[in-house]
Structures are given as structure tokens and as C-alpha cells.
């Protein structure tokens, strides 16, 4: 990449076309780089911490994402009006939308991500597999786009059951179904194509042989756009529920130095062939025999990128922004990890109700603290969790010199984090972290299905008399304040009204 002297990006303007924790993460990084950060937010998000953390903010539309975060015209218009030099799309929303990247290219505005043609190539999962094959990387047996159910029946029989039905325009597990036998194909085909159309606007599906048991591994890459690509080691993301990642870690307990070298080499080959620009992730499935094959390439920053940052000491977002704004490239370390990092995704969902999303106001929030603990959150007490967006409240990350140490810190931090209001998966996450099979590192994409099928409720504990007393003490303090008619009574409890709302734990 062109060598530009350090500091030239200072004062340049970056618009963040996303929300929640990732918008806050990017906007905070802007401040460390001296870049002017602009939040483009929906009406529903006006009170969110990422808007407050921005140097400038612009409302781009109402709550529903289709009319704000997913509206290419509105985002490009906001970027033009606010004289943004580049746009950071975060993950989800427009981050892997080639039309969006192209609209910015046409407007002469930088895009923090690869070129639109790369997104278009990798966005079509069938063509991406062909590109990987050309780069000499093993791919799974599969079909091309399926014309209809009859074609699916023929192809599935040829590939051999069990098969995986996937959306050609897919990602994030949407429009994906496991099909164990011919009897299940028809229902899976219809529901997957409906979900694919709802999520991506395209109903196209294809088939892939299902490798079971398998581990989901991915390699973080960073390309200069001219064919130079760094690999920053692997992450293991086998802990998934309905193809959505729940817990990620780096490195992988299944990867030794030789396998890491082979995975990194394969990832670099794919990214270099595409002259990949910026941060990207190449996903693989690892079989029990140590063989692996290419799954797909994600042309964006991943939700789980911080585990790589923690074991390599790299700020991937800063590297992205520098590249997009023409700043000096950061030196990348060698991909060998130092220590171990674990991420758990804290979501507003109710494990006892089949993990249904849970909405409502966050009444109180205490975020975990401590040495080697990182909280990438997007909400503060008082914020509303709305049904418009995904259920991620924040990501809890812990580092340890060993995996066991990282897990112990994660369990402790999960004991400390307090989210009052919507229901959350915090206790479920701790149950997974403390599960003996997880501790042993015997992971597979089927782990949660096997160990935590369906709904989950915590084991009954001792009678919560202390909790009853805490509630009573709180109510007594509230009643006292009300009876005195003085919201600022001169007692330690006088400050309760603000404390009731969570004491500003913040993101």
C-alpha cells in the first residue's frame, strides 16, 4: 500500500453506518486516531451511547432497519452531506452489500472494506467456492444454484445425505437448514428459501455435503488491496445455536502450529487471489481427521474480531481506518497467538423460552471489570432493547495466559455482569463455559444441540432470601424517599433515584 506519513489521517471524516456495540467500537477508535467520527443513526437509537460518543451525528430515518440502516440512498446521502471521506459499515446491515460499496465508489467516498467486485464475488457462495478451488484450497462437495425443489432432490441424492441447504446470498446462518434425509427436504427447501428472501432479498439456494462432526474455524486476514495479505491466525467458533455463533475463542484447542500454518496459507491464497482489501475472514470446516475445507469468505469485520486482537495485540479497526483513509499501514505481528482469548455474546433473549428475543428497557446495567476483561457493549441503563434490531447487548472478552485461565475469568465476569430489564443469556453462557466437555475443548458445531438441546433453565438454587431482603431494602429506601417527599434526602439513600436506573454502568 502507498507509504503515507503518519498522522495524515488526523482531521479526516469517517461516517459509521451501523449501531450498537460495533458503532461505539469504531467511533471510539476514531477518537484515538484523531479522525472525526460521525454516527448515522435511526430515530429509535438517538439515546444510544454510540450517538453520544460521536463527534457528529445524523438521523437517517425511522426505527425499522429497511428505512434507515439498510437504506443505501439515505446512508450515501448522509455521507455526502456531512462530507465524509469514508464510511465504516460495521458488520451486518450494508457491510457486505456490493451495491452499497459501489454507490460509495461512484460518489467518490471511501468504503472501509473490500472493493464492490470482491464483495460481489464472495457474496455468491457458489462462485466463492469456485474461486477457492482455483486458489488450490479444498472445498466441500456441493451443487450450484438450485432451480427448484426437483433439482434439489436430484442434487441431494448425488451429494449424499445429510446435506446442508444454504442461501447463495447468505451469511450469519440465515436461510440455512440441515437436511438429514429426503423426507425433510421439501419443508426445509421452502422455509430456507422464504428466510433467504426475507433476509437477503434473494431466494436462491444451493446444497453442500454436511460434515459431521466438524469444528468451525476461521482465519483473520488483512489485505492491502494489491495482493499483499497478512494472516492473523485462527479463531474457533464451533459453539453455535441454529448456525449463530455464541462463543468464540482464539486460538483453537484443535489447532497446532502445523495446522495453523496450513490454514493461514489457504486463507492467504484465497484473499490474495482476490486482491483483498482490508479486514476479512476466511471460514473453514475442520473434520475429525484433521482435514479442512473452505466454507465462505466474510468481506467485513467479524463480530468476534476482538479475540484475535487480544492474542495478537493488533487493533483491527484502527488498521481498517488507516487503510481506508490513506494512512500508514500498521506493522502486523506473526500469527502465532500469545495466550488465549474467549468471547461470549451477551444477548437479550430468554433461554427458558427457546431463546426468544426479549425486549424492553434496560433498568440497570453493571458491566464486568477486572484485569484482562474487555466489555464491548452498546447499551447503557435507560436504553430500550427494541424488536427492530438483533439481540446482541455486548461482547464479553477475557484473556488468559492459558485457556483454563481465560475460562475462569470469563465465568467470574459472567457472575458479575448484571443486566436488569430484558431477560438475557448470561446464566446460560456461564453454564456452557463451565461445562466439562467445553473445558476439555472437545468442541463441535453440534455441541449446543447435543449438550443443551432446546430450552434451558438454570438449576434451582437455594431459596433466594438474600435477594428478597435486597429487594425489600430497595423498596424501603424508595418508600422512605417518597414519604419524606424529598427526592434528595440527606441520607446515603438520597441518591437512589439515579442509582435505581443503574448508576450509569454504560457500555
Amino acid at each position, binding site marked *: 500500500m502507498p507509504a503515507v506519513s503518519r498522522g495524515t489521517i488526523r482531521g479526516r471524516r469517517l461516517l459509521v453506518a451501523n449501531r450498537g456495540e460495533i458503532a461505539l467500537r469504531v467511533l471510539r477508535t476514531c477518537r484515538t486516531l484523531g479522525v472525526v467520527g460521525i454516527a448515522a443513526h435511526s430515530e429509535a437509537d438517538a439515546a444510544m451511547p454510540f450517538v453520544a460518543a460521536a463527534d457528529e451525528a445524523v438521523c437517517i430515518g425511522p426505527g425499522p432497519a429497511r428505512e434507515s440502516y439498510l437504506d443505501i440512498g439515505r446512508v450515501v446521502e448522509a455521507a455526502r452531506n456531512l462530507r465524509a471521506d469514508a464510511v465504516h459499515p460495521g458488520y451486518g446491515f450494508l457491510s457486505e452489500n456490493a451495491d452499497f460499496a459501489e454507490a460509495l465508489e461512484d460518489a467518490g467516498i471511501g468504503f472501509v472494506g473490500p472493493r464492490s467486485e470482491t464483495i460481489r464475488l464472495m457474496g455468491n457462495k457458489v462462485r466463492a467456492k469456485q474461486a477457492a478451488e482455483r486458489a488450490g484450497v479444498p472445498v466441500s462437495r456441493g451443487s450450484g444454484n438450485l432451480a427448484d425443489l426437483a433439482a434439489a432432490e436430484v442434487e441431494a441424492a448425488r451429494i449424499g445425505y445429510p446435506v446442508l441447504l444454504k442461501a447463495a446470498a447468505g451469511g450469519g446462518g440465515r436461510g440455512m437448514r440441515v437436511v438429514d434425509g429426503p423426507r425433510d427436504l421439501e419443508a426445509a427447501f421452502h422455509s430456507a428459501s422464504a428466510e433467504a428472501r426475507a*433476509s437477503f432479498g434473494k431466494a436462491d439456494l444451493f446444497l453442500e455435503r454436511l460434515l459431521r462432526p466438524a469444528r468451525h474455524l476461521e482465519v483473520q486476514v488483512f489485505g492491502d488491496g494489491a495482493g499483499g495479505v497478512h494472516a492473523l491466525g485462527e479463531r474457533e467458533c464451533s459453539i453455535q445455536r441454529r448456525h449463530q455463533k455464541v462463543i468464540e475463542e482464539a486460538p483453537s484447542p484443535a489447532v497446532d502450529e502445523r495446522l495453523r500454518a496450513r490454514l493461514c496459507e489457504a486463507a492467504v491464497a484465497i484473499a490474495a487471489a482476490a486482491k483483498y482489501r482490508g479486514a476479512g475472514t476466511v471460514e473453514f470446516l475442520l473434520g475429525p481427521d484433521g482435514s479442512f475445507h473452505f466454507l465462505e469468505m466474510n468481506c467485513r469485520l467479524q463480530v468476534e474480531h476482538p479475540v484475535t486482537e487480544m492474542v495478537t495485540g493488533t487493533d483491527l479497526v484502527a488498521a481498517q481506518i488507516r487503510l481506508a483513509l490513506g494512512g500508514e499501514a500498521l506493522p502486523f505481528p506473526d500469527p502465532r497467538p500469545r495466550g488465549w482469548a474467549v468471547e461470549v455474546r451477551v444477548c437479550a433473549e*430468554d433461554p*427458558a*423460552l*427457546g431463546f*426468544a*428475543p*426479549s*425486549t*424492553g*428497557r434496560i*433498568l*440497570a446495567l*453493571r458491566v464486568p471489570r477486572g484485569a484482562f476483561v474487555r466489555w464491548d457493549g452498546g447499551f447503557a441503563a435507560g436504553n430500550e432493547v427494541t*424488536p*427492530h434490531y*438483533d*439481540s446482541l447487548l455486548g461482547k464479553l472478552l477475557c484473556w488468559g495466559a492459558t485457556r483454563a485461565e481465560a475460562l475462569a475469568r470469563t465465568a467470574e465476569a*459472567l*457472575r*458479575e455482569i*448484571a*443486566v*436488569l*430489564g430484558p*431477560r*438475557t443469556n*448470561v*446464566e446460560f453462557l*456461564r453454564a456452557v463455559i463451565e461445562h466439562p466437555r467445553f473445558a476439555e475443548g472437545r468442541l463441535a458445531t453440534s455441541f449446543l444441540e447435543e449438550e443443551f438441546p432446546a*430450552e434451558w433453565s*438454570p438449576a434451582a438454587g437455594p*431459596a*433466594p*432470601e*438474600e*435477594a*428478597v*431482603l*435486597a*429487594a*425489600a*431494602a*430497595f*423498596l*424501603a*429506601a424508595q*418508600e*422512605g*424517599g417518597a414519604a419524606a417527599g424529598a427526592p434528595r434526602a440527606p*441520607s*446515603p*439513600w438520597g*441518591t437512589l433515584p439515579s*442509582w*435505581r436506573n*443503574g*448508576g*450509569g*454502568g454504560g457500555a
Partner: protein
Amino acid sequence: MNFTGILRDGEGERAVSATLGGGVLRGTVDGRAFADAAVERRGDGLLLVRGRAPSRAVVARDGNRVLVHLDGRVHEFELMDGTKRRRDRGGKRLHAGDEPWIGSPMTGTVASVAAAPGDRVAKGGTLVVVEAMKMQFVVRAPRDVVVKAVPAAAGRPVEIGQVLVEFEEAAP
């Protein structure tokens, strides 16, 4: 500063009282007195010290709902209002399985309705699909049921706990 009332959780109701003064809490649960606890506000939480093991609780209230986080667990209480008994709309009771109705597990939109009045639906059969945050959630029959009425309509917004399908009282 005093509080006397009834708190209910999934296990039942408890009569509690609390008196606060000088940082000391005197409390009773179902008439049983607890040793005085030193109570102190500490950072963003309430420090509740009992005996030798200090535990830090975070408490919040939303109407009649009182939430307590203590040692990694969230306890939910409903503050009972004298003789009034409110139906719990948000909790596990939705899945208790014996009510003559089933409520929406989440706030969102009804994606589709599979049940019609008079239908016999076997346990586990699809009744309604609710959608939120781009996720679909299938509401299934909690047991063998006969559908009495279907207040849910496709495309309409629903709140958590809102009744989607009503059943005949006893399945024949």
C-alpha cells in the same frame, strides 16, 4: 425507612418487611427475622453484607416488577398490590402448559397463523409463527388442544405475553 409487603416469584409468595436506618437493614421473610445486615451503596450496586460473606446485589424496579441480581443470578419478584393478583405476562408461566391460552413469547409481528377455531392440534404442532429481530419463533401447542379462538392475525404486531390462541378448557 420501612417497607412491608408481599413479593412473589416462581416458587410462591413471601411476606417481607424491611427497616433501614443508619446503614443497617432489619428484615423478616415470612415472619423469620434475619440477623441485622449492614447495607451500603457501593459504586453501581447495593452492597448487602450478611454474616461473613459479602454479596453485592443490583436492584431495579419497573412498576410492580422488582429485579435483583445477586451472585450471577437475576431474581424476579412481583410486588403484590394488596388483594389484587396480576397475571404474570412475561415469565415462565407462559409455558406452564395448563392455561387455556398461549401467549406470544416475544414482542414482534405475527408472521403466519396455522391454527383456526375448531382445529385439533397435537402437542408440538405449529399454532402461530412470530417474528422479531429477523428471527422466526414457532409457537407450538403445549399439549393436545382444541382451538377455541385465534386472536392473532398475520402481519399484526404483538407484545410479549399477548394471547395468540385460546383453547377449549378440556381436550376431549
